[in-house]
């Protein structure tokens, strides 16, 4: 395929993916908005007013970046995992396999689709948060960079999950048993300075802690961890995950007999 054809193929796939999650918006865009509104009301307003300040910010302002990031992570991941697995399940993945599209375009199309939903939901949650707190972005480039990279990383993760999955249950295991606990323990609702030394050490091996804190740094200008290192680590994870996903796709893992 020449570069123009590759671009057309990639665009086709991205448009198809975006059309999919916007067509079923009551399942994809509405629930996270409602869930996050509940978080803002209950944790931010009702409980937060009694918690007081955290790192010099109101509790509401402190948890907003974490909740945005939580939405981006879960939506990027689950979009690609469910979409690609549905394609496998309905065998419509064969449409792509019989075409001359290179594997990296297929992977790229799904990842960009997942990122679109993750970032779209992130934007909706951000807009909802404006009803509860003022949001001033201290470092726009860091904010955009971190959220985009995080969406990319978890979209690729969702793709790998879908390749390995044999049944629909297999695509909900990671979000429920891995992503949700890591996100909750990743400093969304608290600063790790509040933890005893041992648990601070344990928290440092949680990759989501770095993303949440780097994003919080972008918005509030405060972080529990060095932001530069976090950005490099996320970038390296993206490269490694992309390479693994591409290798699996090239070998037809889970899709070719």
């Amino acid at each position, binding site marked *: *395929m*020449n570069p*123009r*054809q*590759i671009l*057309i*193929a990639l*665009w*086709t*796939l991205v448009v*198809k993916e975006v*059309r*999919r999650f916007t*067509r079923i918006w009551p399942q994809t865009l509405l629930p996270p908005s409602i869930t996050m509104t509940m978080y803002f009301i209950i944790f931010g307003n009702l409980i937060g007013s009694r918690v007081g300040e955290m790192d010099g910010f109101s509790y509401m302002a402190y948890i907003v970046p974490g909740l945005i990031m939580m939405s981006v992570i879960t939506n990027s991941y689950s979009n690609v995992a469910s979409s690609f697995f*549905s*394609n496998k399940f*309905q*065998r*419509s993945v*064969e*449409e*792509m*396999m*019989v*075409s*001359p*599209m*290179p594997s990296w375009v297929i992977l790229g199309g799904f990842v960009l689709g997942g990122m679109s939903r993750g970032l779209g939901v992130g934007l909706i949650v951000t807009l909802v948060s404006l009803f509860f707190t003022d949001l001033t972005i201290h470092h726009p480039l860091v904010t955009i960079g971190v959220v985009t990279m995080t969406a990319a990383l978890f979209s690729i993760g969702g793709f790998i999950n879908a390749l390995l999955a044999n049944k629909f249950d297999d695509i909900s295991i990671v979000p429920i048993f891995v992503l949700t606990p890591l996100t909750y323990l990743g400093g969304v609702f608290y600063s790790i300075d509040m933890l005893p030394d041992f648990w601070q050490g344990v928290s440092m091996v949680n990759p989501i802690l770095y993303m949440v804190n780097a994003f919080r740094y972008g918005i509030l200008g405060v972080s529990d961890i060095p932001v530069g290192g976090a950005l490099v680590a996320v970038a390296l994870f993206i490269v490694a995950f992309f390479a693994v996903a591409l290798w699996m796709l090239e070998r*037809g893992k889970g899709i*070719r*007999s």
Partner: protein
Amino acid sequence: MTTPALSIRGLTKVYGNGFHALKGIDLDVPQGDFFALLGPNGAGKSTTLGIVCSLVQKTAGEVSIYGIDIDRDFAKAKYHLGVVPQEFNFSQFEKVEDIVLAQAGYYGMSLREARPRCAQLLKDLGLWDKRNGPARMLSGGMKRRLMIARALVHRPRLLILDEPTAGVDIELRRSMWEYMRRINREEGTTIILTTHYLEEAESLCRNIAIINHGEIVKNTSVRELLTELDTETFLLDLAEPVDRAPVIEGFEVERVERAQLALSLRKGQQLNEAFRQLSEQGMNVVSMRNRANRLEELFVSMVEGDNARARQAEAGNKEAQS
């Protein structure tokens, strides 16, 4: 000699569970041909086509599509290929038109180029009125036609149809045959067809290969194959019922129903002679037809013969091992 549309050499497939699906088959399909690949279930047809379409990974062997080795440049070879699989393999929730346009996009066709092509195909295949509805609302026959439209959108030179008329009513089947004949004749599209309706293969195809137990047991033209048919059986409908089968010298006759006879005609025998003798006995034939499709009779005899040989060989092996 022109490059074959599809050339297969020594194609072997062993699945993970050790099942030897293909045992080094060779096959050439000439350009512009209408070719049937026949075989019983599990014979290796779908595995062969799956490898050609990149849905199945081969264990060994070579496959070339219009002279392009799939191991060297599969992407380029895929431009020549359109595939209509056995099972529905599109998203049931997408709009009919979107499914065809997306496929065009996967081949790098711009929307400006794809839209008129898509419209033409949907009109030709009677799906234009359904273009804005979700694919799940289509009937089974319409879904099959949708897969044909999708497979043709990028103008492939080689179209693979894996049981395209399975479960399709006779009227629709005939209209699909007519459409396939037209694209084969007018656009020069090479068509490879697998089917369990042998009448379909006999009616449409010029050349044929029969595959069984992962091996090609016959590869010839339909015309030549039919000359191998030693005996044909005709059902004769009589004007009046008969109590028992008449004796017709030189022919085998059996009474099927009160007013129907089955007449076996061996190679070289004349129907006229049978009619003459029936007429002499005061029996008038009002209509006649083949008891079974001619190709079907040959197919069954070949596959049964091959299966018997395979069973014998297996028994021999077991005996040698014990």
